[in-house]
């Protein structure tokens, strides 16, 4: 089995064909295949993992694909510049130029549109708008009814608000925090035909609010969908022993366990690198401290069990972790 197959995705070399400043802190990147031809087929809601070499470090960040599912000449992503210690988005914003080469994974969809739904409510907060752009386009092509509710901080922050409004008119509802505009969620949840599916993408607090309100309004779990990629939090360095590979690696302050393991040449499987998909679940052999679970995949009992860890986002408080890898 090749390394790439193990990680469940293949890396595609791409060239940066275009970079557009969309709003104050958001840039759009267009990636064309270096080898020519077309990019692999994807469906709305899919994401790719972009790999970049930042100094001696290799960073891989997940981004939703926002382009049209019918245009495979290139992929488009939008990146919010967040000043975190890991630097992936800062690197894309400040260092990447048109013509540069990067690699992206084949697309993975953890947030697909339920094909048998009768109607679709799309709710986005801030940069969470990106998967919704692809969804709105796909739903329009399929002639399926939808409405898009998009909330953002202030007039400068609403990336794509004007484009979306121009394209979809009354189907798009905009809410600007600084003007005290709020999504009328309760009214929205009350008046939908049976078979409606809701999709939410945005900050954690917003996602929780929407999902919780949905459940309280009697929406079945099956009709509520969310996606959120966490950036792996920083923390004190510690060492990880890979029992089967017989290796010991050090996880740096701003590195995830997964990244440290990859740097040593071992490639554990992953799909989202954001604590959402469950693919990187790894068994803990022992730990001299406590596990710090940062994912939103494990059930509470599994977290407390201390036998499993999602190595893309979680860490330990302690000095040594032994993994079954």
């Amino acid at each position: 089995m090749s390394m790439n197959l193990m990680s469940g995705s293949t890396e595609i070399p791409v060239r940066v064909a275009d970079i557009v400043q969309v709003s104050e802190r958001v840039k759009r990147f267009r990636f064309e295949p270096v080898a020519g031809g077309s990019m692999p087929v994807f469906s709305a809601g899919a994401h790719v993992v972009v790999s970049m070499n930042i100094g001696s470090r290799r960073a891989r960040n997940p981004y939703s694909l926002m382009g049209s599912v019918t245009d495979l000449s290139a992929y488009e992503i939008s990146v919010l510049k967040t000043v975190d210690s890991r630097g992936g988005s800062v690197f894309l914003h400040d260092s990447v130029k048109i013509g540069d080469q990067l690699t992206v994974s084949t697309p993975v969809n953890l947030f697909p549109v339920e094909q048998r739904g009768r109607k679709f409510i799309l709710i986005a907060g801030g940069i969470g708008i990106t998967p919704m752009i692809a969804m709105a386009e796909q739903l329009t092509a399929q002639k399926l009814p939808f409405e898009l509710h998009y909330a953002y901080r202030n007039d400068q922050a609403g990336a794509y608000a004007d484009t979306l409004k121009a394209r979809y008119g009354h189907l798009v509802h905009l809410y600007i925090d600084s003007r005290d505009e709020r999504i009328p969620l309760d009214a929205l949840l009350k008046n939908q035909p049976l078979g409606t599916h809701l999709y939410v993408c945005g900050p954690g607090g917003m996602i929780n609010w929407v999902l919780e309100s949905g459940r309280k309004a009697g929406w079945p779990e099956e009709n509520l969908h969310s996606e959120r990629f966490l950036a792996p939090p920083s923390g004190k360095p510690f060492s990880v022993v890979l029992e089967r590979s017989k290796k010991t690696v050090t996880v740096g302050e701003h590195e995830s366990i997964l990244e440290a393991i990859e740097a040593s040449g071992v490639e554990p499987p992953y799909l989202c690198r954001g604590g959402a998909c469950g693919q990187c679940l790894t068994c803990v052999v022992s730990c001299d401290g406590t596990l710090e679970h940062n994912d939103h995949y494990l059930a509470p009992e599994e977290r407390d069990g201390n036998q499993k860890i999602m190595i893309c986002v979680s860490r330990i408080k302690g000095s040594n972790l032994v993994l079954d890898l």
Partner: protein
Amino acid sequence: MLVSGIKSRPVYTGLILDPHAEHHLIAVEGEGALAVLDMLSPAPRDAAEKATILYTKAGSAPVDHEGALAKLHPYRLQPLPTIQTLLIRLQGFLTTAKMGTRIYIAGTEGFIGQAMQVALNNAIDFHSVRTEHRGSLARRIQCVHCKGFTENVTMSHVPCAHCGLNLLVRDHYSRRLGAFQGVCIDAEVPGELPPAEEIFP
């Protein structure tokens, strides 16, 4: 003889009230009424006040649970003469229902399958429907040869009501059809059959 361990064999997890639902839409046949009584009797009063119950006594005739259901004081109780008329009413309600309506189905397997089909055709997710099997284990089967349906099959094999072939009743279940598969049991030597046993009483 029965081919078991087949994944498509449906699992009915029981009627569990969704406390957040704005409305409960309950399709019930025969002994399924007992499952509805078990769910709603101990529940807070407003649960029944939000319930629409579509009931046909079909399988449990001559026992009629209508009186017992009426004592729950549901928002609406509609007794219907047959499964077919109930399914048509169900379709009517689903056409105009809003999100926040929780669907429940209770009764024999054949009934659950047919009511579920109506729900699926209305874009409702299979897993969001709460179901409970009560009453006879009788199966609704589809002949894989002529595609005709035979209802209320309690025996391990049965002649197809349409083409007459002797059918082995399998565990293979189609959600789309709401029926189990029946396959010719004596294809090699027609008429050479093991004794039929009543296995779905």
